[in-house]
């Protein structure tokens, strides 16, 4: 099971631009590789990553097989108010992995 890791600041000032780092464990089988017997390993990747703040989408990424194993994303956004930053990864097989972090505006 994919295990996500995210780095989000606990607090910010209103309007501050913060940098977010995310990483999720996933093999990202590209569908190009072969196993030891020479059979093609079928494609199985995370095809979508998104982050939303208090329900409003911040960033959305469509992933192709050329994204490395354990997909890593860094992005930055302007914090308008105290709220939850919710992350979502979607696997080819439909599995959804989610995690959430609260940012407090002082």
């Amino acid at each position, binding site marked *: 099971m994919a295990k996500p890791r995210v780095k989000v600041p606990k607090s910010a000032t209103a309007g501050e*631009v913060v940098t977010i780092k995310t990483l999720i464990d996933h093999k990202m089988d*590209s569908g*190009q*590789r*072969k196993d030891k017997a020479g059979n093609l390993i079928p494609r199985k990747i995370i095809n979508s990553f998104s982050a939303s*703040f208090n329900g*409003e*989408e*911040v*960033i*959305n*990424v*469509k*992933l*192709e*097989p*050329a*994204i*490395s*194993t354990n*997909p*890593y*994303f*860094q*992005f*930055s*956004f*302007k914090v*308008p108010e105290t709220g939850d930053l919710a992350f979502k990864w979607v696997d080819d097989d439909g599995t959804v992995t989610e995690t959430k972090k609260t940012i407090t505006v002082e």
Partner: protein
Amino acid sequence: MKLTRRNALALGGAAIAVTLVPVNATFAATDLTMADIAAFTGGAEVGEGGIELTTPEIAENGNTVPIAFSAPGAKRVLILADGNPSPGVATFSFSELAMAEGSTRIRLATTQDVIAVAEMADGTFTKVSKSVKVTIGGCGG
């Protein structure tokens, strides 16, 4: 200048040269890459520059090549790897809360160009490309 047969031919030749040169000189990409760019832009004209694309000059391991981009004012950014079996890498969409920048790690099969195409808030498109030398490819096996 009198319009003689010779002058007319010279003018025509010059006109053809002018129309051909920019297409060939600025961008030599594979058909697959061109098709992906056309799908992203809807066939609109694509300018140059306006995006800062950071890639390593030499990537020892093609399995995980760090890339970063910053395209101030962009709504969407498409990343392509021209020399991969399939050029698509990722498409980023930014809301008004987000800065139009990001970084990730990608796979490169061989030495090639990495291309970023951005759709600006006013609906125009722009692109940049960077060459990356790859020592060990990241798609084989």
